[in-house]
């Protein structure tokens, strides 16, 4: 048989491509539930990390069980700080990254948004942040004390920042450790919570040191934090004043 003819080549290539597509579609469909469960457990463990919980992270089930045990309630807020929806905490429902990305666009475009806040039984509340780093998205969670404006802890992650430089927002415990004990300040004109290049000014409670060698990532994270904290202003301010 002539395997070099035009028709043979076209038909052969088409068959191979369709066969490969079928295999991949099948694999993707079968593995999707497992992958989604992994992603969800990872997001939950990041929320728990931000809130400074000590928990067993060895399996997805352990993470979910711990979350369900400790979460009080979670809801969606709009710009005015009004509740526009609730998350089912018994099912450990959370707002995933793709949704955060969509809401980030809404916040920046001045459109209506619905952003999540998680309340734990010990009173700590956790809010997500999302923005652009140097190479891709950065996101994270900031945990606030039950009363006042004190920060309990924070956890950040990124899609593709440089390991050892921008990647430190996730990998360096000393960086995220700075956030605990700091506070958010809505009255400060410069920033609500700033990541300051060259070091946070002495005695300033709402600033932390940027990562040297990772200026763009630090800036991106700083913007993400401030844009999102401002989006929660309607709700958080109200909390602070009470």
């Amino acid at each position: 048989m002539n395997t070099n003819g035009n028709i043979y080549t076209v038909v052969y290539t088409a068959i191979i491509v369709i066969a490969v597509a079928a295999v991949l579609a099948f694999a993707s469909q079968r593995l999707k539930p497992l992958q989604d469960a992994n992603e969800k457990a990872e997001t939950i463990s990041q929320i728990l990390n931000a809130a400074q919980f000590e928990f067993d992270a060895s399996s997805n089930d352990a993470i979910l069980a711990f979350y369900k045990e400790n979460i009080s309630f979670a809801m969606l807020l709009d710009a005015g700080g009004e509740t526009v929806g609730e998350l089912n905490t018994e099912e450990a429902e959370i707002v995933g990254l793709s949704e955060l990305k969509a809401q980030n666009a809404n916040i920046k475009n001045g459109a209506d948004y619905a952003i999540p806040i998680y309340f734990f039984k010990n009173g700590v509340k956790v809010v997500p942040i999302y923005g652009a780093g140097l190479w891709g998205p950065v996101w994270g969670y900031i945990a606030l004390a039950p009363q006042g404006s004190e920060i309990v802890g924070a956890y950040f992650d990124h899609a593709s920042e440089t390991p050892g430089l921008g990647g430190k927002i996730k990998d360096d415990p000393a960086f995220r450790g700075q956030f605990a004990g700091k506070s958010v300040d809505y009255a400060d004109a410069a920033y609500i919570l700033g990541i300051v290049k060259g070091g946070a000014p002495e005695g300033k409670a709402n600033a932390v040191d940027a990562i040297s060698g990772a200026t763009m990532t630090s800036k991106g994270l700083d913007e993400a934090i401030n844009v999102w904290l401002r989006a929660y202003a309607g709700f958080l301010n109200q909390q602070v004043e009470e």
Partner: protein
Amino acid sequence: MANLKETFLNPILKGNPITVLVLGICSSLAVTVELKGACVMALSVIIVTGVSSLICSLLRKTIPNRVRIIIQLVVVAMMVILVDQVLKAFAYTIDKQLSVYIGLIITNCIVMGRIEAFALGNKPWPSLVDGFANGLGYGLIIIVVAFFRELLGSGTLFGLHVLPAGYVPNNLVILPPFALILLGCIIWAHRAFDKELQEK
């Protein structure tokens, strides 16, 4: 055709893809900071090279010569995506750590090189052995590199502390240039040991 034992041993020793052919250097610099990641990467490459070689060998008599590279590419891409999907489902944290490098196995010259040079001209069984052995030759080297980098760079092995608490981790070891230096040393040692590899 050389016998199977030769087919299996050659890529690991005299024809090692990293130390002799100097292929797959990029990923061997990138994924060798920790042993665990390197082991998963090694396993992934072994599976991809082995199975892709097998599939291409099975198809070798039917593949139109003019589009053979494209067909090879489609087969390799399929295997890489499958491996990535399986890792995402069953070893999520490791997949995140290896990030783009699993996807980049497709650009690893070892895979396409072995299909083009071996699988298209040999029967399925030897092709599987050849692909498998080349993956193994690659894997062994990156595991050796990762062993030294994790030990000296973090004082740990598989995440467990093995060096005394007083050891100050060496940051240079964590950075990619050190992997290149180490790789150079391994190539040097390999050549010094095997006189046949030395050019006149």
